[in-house]
């Protein structure tokens, strides 16, 4: 049998056997038999050295051709066996609808999430996030914010006082009723221009019910510089509302009173539920009050030694719990601090 005939025989035999193969093991044996080091094809190729140059050319070309051909059919067979594997061996198939092995996943508290998100927005507008003490002197919490003793404005913020008496027999220590004392603390240290936001806990003397708790969270903002106007206050808070509540959410300002600002304003956004049409959530007004703000009162600026005829500024303060309550329709503020994982794991 000539070498070329031998090659032809190998090819016929290989293709014929390959056809019958139905699993990977047999295929592997086939590969060894026809394409391995000790295969007949390799033997033929090794024998080439003994041939004349003329024969080498034709036989070599045919043998290489066969090698390529076998590689191609092998690959094809491998692929088709891959498909057959599942349909043929159903009992080994995976049910991809079984749950995955999840790495454990915790949940950030919804209040932390809101603080993070709001700080991010204000930081991107050039504000710096700072924090301050929760136990405060009435000097920072009231006096320096233009809320004198025996003034009804103090009654609006029912205060929890600390059992502490100084040498003068005064009892000036309290749990801060708002984050605003940080306005004074920061302005005492840093000269304008300044822009800060202050997230933190505040406390009020409140009986606990679905809408009142003695501890809650606020975020405060303050910007002081030459030439800051009420128009800047509006612009900054509009921008915040657009970014936080979405660009189609309308916001409006109206006059309100806080002793440490003048003029004072309150910002409302279009009701999240009814989009302004009027519903139970917004008491049919179409608007939801979300923050109080205003131009820093000249007395507050002068109190920390900032010349109020040269500098001006705005401040704002917002209750944090109200925001997720409105967003998610939560009707009981106590849920935030009750630690019930069935609630907290939803956020």
């Amino acid at each position, binding site marked *: 049998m000539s070498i070329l005939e031998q090659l032809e025989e190998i090819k016929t035999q290989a293709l014929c056997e390959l056809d019958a193969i139905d699993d990977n093991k047999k295929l592997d044996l086939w590969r060894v038999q026809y394409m391995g080091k000790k295969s007949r094809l390799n033997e033929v190729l090794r024998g080439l050295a003994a041939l004349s140059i003329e024969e080498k050319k034709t036989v070599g070309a045919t043998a290489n051709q066969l090698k390529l051909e076998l590689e191609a059919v092998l690959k094809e067979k491998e692929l088709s066996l891959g498909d057959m594997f599942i349909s043929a061996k159903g009992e080994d198939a995976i049910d991809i609808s079984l749950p995955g092995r999840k790495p454990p996943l915790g949940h950030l508290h919804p209040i932390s999430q809101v603080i993070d998100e709001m700080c991010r927005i204000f930081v991107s507008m050039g504000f710096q996030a700072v924090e301050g003490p*929760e136990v405060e002197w009435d000097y920072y919490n009231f006096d320096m914010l233009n809320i004198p003793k025996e003034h009804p404005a103090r009654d609006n913020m029912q205060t929890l006082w600390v059992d502490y008496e100084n040498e003068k027999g005064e009892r000036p220590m309290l749990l801060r009723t708002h984050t605003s004392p940080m306005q004074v603390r920061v302005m005492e240290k840093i000269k304008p221009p300044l822009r800060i936001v202050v997230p933190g806990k505040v406390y009020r003397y409140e009986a606990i019910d679905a809408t009142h708790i003695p501890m809650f969270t606020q975020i405060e903002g303050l910007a002081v510089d030459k030439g800051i106007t009420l128009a800047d206050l509006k612009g900054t808070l509009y921008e915040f509302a657009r970014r936080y509540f979405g660009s189609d959410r309308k916001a409006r300002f109206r006059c309100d009173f806080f002793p440490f600002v003048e003029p004072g304003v309150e910002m409302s956004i279009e009701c999240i539920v009814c989009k302004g049409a009027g519903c139970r959530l917004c008491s049919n007004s179409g608007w939801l009050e979300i923050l109080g703000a205003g131009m820093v009162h000249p007395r507050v600026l002068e109190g920390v030694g900032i010349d109020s005829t040269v500098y001006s500024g705005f401040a704002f303060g917002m209750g944090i719990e109200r925001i997720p309550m409105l967003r998610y329709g939560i009707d009981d503020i106590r849920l935030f601090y009750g630690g019930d994982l069935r609630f907290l794991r939803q956020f």
Partner: protein
Amino acid sequence: MKVPVKWLKDYIDIDLSPKELAHVLTMSGTESEIKYLGESWDGVIIGQITAIDPHPNADRLRLATVNTGSGMQTVVCGAPNLTIGDKIAFASVGAHLIDGHTGEKSILKPAKIRGVESCGMVCSEMELGMSKDHEGILVLASDAPLGKPLAEFLSDIVLDIDVTPNRPDLLSVIGVAWEVAAITGKKVKVPDLSYSESGDAIEKQVSIVIEDADLCPRYSASLITGVKIGESPEWLKQRLMACGVRPINNIVDVTNYVMFEYGQPLHSFDYDKIKTNKIVVRRAKNGEMMQTLDDIERKLDGNTLMITDGEKSVAIAGVMGGANSDITDNTISILLESANFNAAGIHYTSHNLKLVSEASMRFERGIRPDLTVHALKRATRLILQLAGGCAAKGIVDVYPQKQERKSLNLRSSEIKRILGVGFSNEQVAGTLTSLGFEVDIYPNDEYMVTAPYWRSDINIEVDLIEELARIIGYENIPTTLLSGSIAHQEPNYLMDLKSMVRHTLVGFGFDEIITYSLTNREMLAKAYASNTLHKEPVKLDNAMSAEQEYLRTNLRSGLLSVLQSNLRHEEGPIRIFELNRIYIKRENDLPEEPEIVCGLMYNPEQEKSWPLHTQPFDFFSVKGVVESLLSSLNVDADFRQSDDESLLPGFQAEVLVKGNKIGVIGEVHPKVANAFDISEKVYMFELNINSLLTYSLQQTGYQAITRFPSVIRDIALVLDSGVTHKQVTDIINRFSLVNEITLFDVYSGKQVEAGKKSLAYRLIFQSAEHTLTDKEVDKVLQQILKKLEGALGATLRA
């Protein structure tokens, strides 16, 4: 403040609908809501009481037979003022009412009261939502049409105004009229104050002395003799009721009416009971007692201002009158007081005595002394009209230090500097004038402005700017973004660190908890096996309850309670943490408020369900969390045996960084767990974030990746069981060719000698300079084993 719209229209023409009116007032700073009195009175009609019988089973209840116009109904009623013949408000079953006890809205249901069927109810003012009065039933005028809906007879539209503390002038109907005037451009019509004075000169009959002028800047009074006390006319009674006040008699009603009209509280004395014909205004003597109108004997202190007749006290100034000078049906002469009292003084007294009245509420906000005479004249005129009598000639008006109305300079430049927009002369002058201000326009766009006599809140230039902004409208102020430079800002490393720790723990499967900072001593002590507190917590002066009287000194108690309560509805595993402050008392200073992160891990044995892979749960589970957390913050920590009282001895360690303690980890002491009803093992970690901040560093460099292959050798060492893993690795780590040591087995048992244990390590050798040969590695390994043997008595396990 409730402002009946009909009453408001006495002073100003209003074209707006009530809803629009409420809206424009709200936008300009006077938060208003519309209340239709009678809006919810479906099912309430006018009835008449025809018979009253005793209740067979109850002494305090009676059975009233009510003629409803279409039949007779019997109702059970406990009111003391049931009178045969009175017209009353009758609610039939299904009517919407306010519950007299809870103040909640309710729907009237058929009821059997002490065995007697009651087919409806005779209503109090409170039940109708008219006032807080639930003492007796509402008695209607005798001409009320029987059987007709109550709403047709009594209803009114009321603006319910939430007045801010700076605007006492808005606690008056005329004050609100001025606001409406400014917004709508209409003119205010002021009431007539004139009356004829046919009596003797008042100076001959009354003298007034102010001893403490700091607490009483002004005292004005008039005298009316020969009055006839009686019921007020229906229009007056209805207006008072709409304001939430119960009519009493024509004199008291007029003083209340004028208080609502002008915002100036008035008080009427029975002149004949002022035996000295003299009023002396002075501070109370410490401990002085007095019986007020409500028949309560009150103890007063030296900061309380009293109205006296020179001998005895007749009223607590600005707060409440005395029982001894009260107007009665027999009163014939009235001394009418219209005074101004110091705001802080009244605030103090009202809070000290826990007595808040319509009068005290106005005085403590600081009303102008100019009001006294206007209100006095108005009230005198009305009393003459309604109760007859004759007024003495003139009034007494003691005003020791006249408070001049302030004139303020207002500059256009300042308006623009604060608001970011300028207004024309016409806008500025027009707006302020419509509010009652007097405005002079000066050259250079400056104005001289004098506030109206009833406004006490206008003190500086920016107060005028607010007036412009709120009346012209905030929507007419432009919107700009901050344009100034941003100052250099120091990064807030503490806040960044807290955020990183929170997010990393969430990534490790922990749920974040926030608990109240206010707690009690017992709860705080529960976190320790000894059940005692070693640090005295910060205590509140006026805690809401004993449950929330102290500021916490640990986060552990709160978290253990949260775990406890969650175990009532789930089995776990539970991983929770809180990152918040604790409060450490300091002498004569605010407490320290360190930031702490505390976490709990709870993972009971449970049925294995797919695809649960069983990882052991023990001390090393919590240690691993802390190790990974610290490693993510580039902190190198050591662990050392510790003696924390919350944790089980022997199963706890303190976390050290550079020799300093920053926290603890370990198994919660079973005694502590039991105190929280937890029977399974709980592991806890606690780190001080402020300490961590000192050591958590920014990454400074990196280690080059070597291109030379590594060589692996596994060794199993037999050691005395007292030798620690750390002792072994400390020695091995001294050999620089060892790149990594991994512990892969810990064994003690039959296959090693008693008192010994086996630790198995995989060592990875690698050089940054060359490919290591087996020979080289074996040589180093022999050195390592020799060192281990010499130092720790380690042998290779056979």
